[in-house]
């Protein structure tokens, strides 16, 4: 096999197809042509009119020229590349096209990686095409080469990140109006991000000194931002892959595994930062982020399958310990609920341990009560578990995937609407706070500061106990059904049934 053939064999098929479509289509060619045209016009205009002279007599219009060229390029790429990627993903997300891919031996992750690589390649194409103009601004003085490359690198990764979000939104299984709404929200966010980037880039160029790039604080901030953005991008790519994976597959596994790894890695980083800077803030931030992630996973978990088809059953280990771990991580509502309980519990427990031991290096500040965290964790858990219970026992017509919406409705009904009615109708009497605490007894996120009924935690714990006890037989039933393929063949037949529409 020749080297060319070998290289050809390594190419991602989706990327090859997408790039062929991109160069054949009008969209990318139009964006590229307009972007270059605008840059030629901008350079020409600066050359003719913008010559500024410093006191030393040296012309320095390079920074203004660079900023103009940069914003022409950045506007074009940050708006149109994600738009192109998102629309292409949404169009090809149609069942027919995805089905066609899944009758081949291609893997879902190859599809997503291919789409992402296409985005990177198209962004690189636009950036490299503009590079001669941008570097030309260096000749005009006022901006150094390092700043040019630094700014372009930031912009390049920003465009790629925006495109990853667009890919994710493009494959969200939702109705067209809802997708349109998501798209509008996304572009609102992009515009806000654009404003922030514009301010940042302007500041970097205006205050550009080599000294700034030599400070460790600067690079710490850059690396921290890159790590956070990178983690979000990876999460979105994994989620996008999971969304396009067939429902019969073990779709929850990569998500739960990823969140577990993020939980561990971010704990290590937060603890390191907390000890280094002698503050509890990183741990608080870690706890809040983990709560958010676990709650999102729990919202999905309560709508997952309760039986496993052969495709998942093939992967269930025979070893009891491995099987128990697999139960937590594999697709399935029962195991997912236990996974969420485990991680909620571990997060609150770790936070409490840090609070109690309070190493001297961490300072004495008390930012967030462990009680508040426990209340929040139990709140998320009981509302969603109650929704699951109601959907299974009473609301049979509600599809499993809408269980999270039932939980939200219960939360609104018992925890949000009563306080709002109370606030609208009550006079400002001295016992207002006390009465308000009472109506927000089931809501750990009250609208007023300093509120909290002492009985809230015990009541939530009692509620948790009730729903947990009621859910034990349901989880037990799933655990018994969670058998490897061969064990099933030896045992009962009905566990082979797949509950359709509930796959994670």
């Amino acid at each position, binding site marked *: 096999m020749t080297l060319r053939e070998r290289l050809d064999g390594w190419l991602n098929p989706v990327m090859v197809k997408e790039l062929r479509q991109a160069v054949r289509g009008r969209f990318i060619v139009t964006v590229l042509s307009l972007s270059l045209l605008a840059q030629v016009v901008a350079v020409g205009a600066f050359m003719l009119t913008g010559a500024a002279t410093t006191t030393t007599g040296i012309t320095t219009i390079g920074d203004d020229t660079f900023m103009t060229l940069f914003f022409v390029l950045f506007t074009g790429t940050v708006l149109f590349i994600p738009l192109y990627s998102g629309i292409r993903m949404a169009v090809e997300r149609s069942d*027919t096209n995805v089905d066609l891919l899944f009758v081949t031996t291609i893997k879902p992750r190859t599809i997503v990686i291919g789409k992402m690589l296409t985005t990177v390649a198209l962004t690189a194409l636009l950036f490299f095409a503009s590079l001669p103009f941008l570097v030309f601004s260096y000749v005009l003085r006022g901006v150094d080469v390092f700043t040019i490359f630094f700014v372009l690198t930031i912009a390049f990764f920003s465009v790629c990140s925006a495109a990853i979000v667009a890919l994710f939104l493009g494959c969200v299984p939702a109705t067209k109006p809802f997708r349109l709404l998501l798209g509008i929200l996304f572009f609102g966010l992009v515009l806000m991000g654009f404003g922030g980037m514009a301010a940042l880039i302007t500041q970097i160029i205006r205050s550009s000194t080599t000294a700034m790039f030599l400070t460790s604080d600067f690079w710490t901030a850059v690396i921290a931002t890159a790590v956070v953005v990178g983690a979000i991008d990876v999460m979105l790519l994994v989620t996008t892959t999971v969304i396009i994976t067939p429902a019969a597959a073990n779709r929850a596994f990569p998500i739960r595994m990823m969140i577990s790894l993020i939980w561990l890695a971010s704990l290590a980083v937060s603890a390191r930062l907390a000890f280094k800077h002698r503050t509890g803030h990183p741990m608080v931030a870690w706890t809040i982020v983990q709560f958010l992630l676990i709650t999102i996973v729990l919202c999905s978990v309560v709508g997952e399958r309760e039986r496993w088809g052969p495709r998942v059953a093939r992967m269930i280990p025979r070893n009891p310990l491995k099987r128990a771990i697999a139960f937590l991580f594999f697709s399935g509502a029962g195991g997912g609920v236990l996974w969420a309980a485990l991680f909620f519990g571990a997060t609150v427990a770790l936070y409490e341990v840090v609070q109690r031991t309070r190493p001297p290096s961490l300072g004495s500040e008390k930012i967030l009560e462990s009680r508040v965290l426990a209340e929040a964790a139990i709140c998320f858990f009981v509302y969603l578990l109650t929704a699951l219970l109601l959907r299974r026992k009473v609301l049979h017509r509600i599809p499993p995937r809408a269980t999270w919406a039932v939980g939200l409705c219960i939360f609104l009904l018992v925890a949000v609407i009563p306080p709002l009615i109370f606030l609208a109708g009550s006079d400002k009497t001295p016992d207002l706070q006390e009465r308000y605490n009472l109506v927000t007894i089931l809501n750990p996120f009250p609208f007023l500061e300093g509120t909290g009924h002492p009985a809230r935690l015990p009541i939530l714990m009692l509620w948790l106990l009730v729903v947990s006890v009621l859910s034990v037989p349901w989880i037990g039933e799933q655990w018994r059904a969670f058998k490897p393929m061969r064990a099933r063949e030896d045992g009962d037949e009905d566990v082979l*049934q797949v509950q359709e529409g509930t796959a994670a």
Partner: protein
Amino acid sequence: MRVDVVALRKDFGKTTAVDGVSFTFGSGDVMGFVGPNGAGKTTTMRILSTLDEPSGGDALIDGVSLVQEPEEARRRIGFVPDALPTHADITVHEYLDFFARAYGIEARKRKAVIDGVEEFTNLTGIREKLLKALSKGMNQRVCLARALLHDPKVLILDEPAAGLDPRARIELRELIRVFAAQGKAILMSSHILTELSEICTGAVIIERGRILRAGTLDEIMRMPEDERRTLVVRTRGNALELQRLLLELPGVGQTNVDEDEVTLEFSGSEDEASDLLGELVRRGQRIAEFRQQRANLEQIFMNVTTGGVQ
């Protein structure tokens, strides 16, 4: 090559879309898959193509289980769904190249494979045309070419003739005959039963997820004992008198006279039909010919299905 579908079942919540479907077909067979809309044809075909997972049962492609080894089974199957591709800005050749890559065909073999398939499906002349510029018939050809890239032993075609003009249908029919001659096992659904009768060697009739008839066309068209049958009686005497007499006899339904022939719908077994002939002779009728009219697939379909969906 042999495909054994064994007690296949698919539940969507409380609805059973496919309920214990079993049938067999092999190399060189063209099996028609017939049923009213919503009968479970597409669901069965999607399961056989490994796109969906069965709730019960299995299918063995030359002994390879769809349930236990879907990846291995997938290599042996070429699937043409009932919808055409919607990829924009891509030529026929690029489209096939993409799928050849997706099937993991090695770079050194890929060009030869694509060229061969293009030639076989008569696409060489339009390989540089954009997909969106093609007619429906040509697009269907591209779909067939795509399904042939990895040289599958089994072809599953879901409504391949839907929306095609007469020429494209004839060409498709010829292609399917060639596939069968090459030894591929073909399962093909269609609503055009006359066309299926012309190319199929066997048929599966399905309704409400259950199989009503399955087997070779000869087996299918042979009336079961308890079904209706159409009999033709030619008389040397008066046909109208014969008709009057027939209407008095048990099991005889609608009758029709055409010159010296009476065609009648008869409910009963072959033995009872033979008794009917004996009775006519006993009553002094001069019977010149007494035969059972062979039912076609359309008639069988109308007889055995009720038009219901799950």
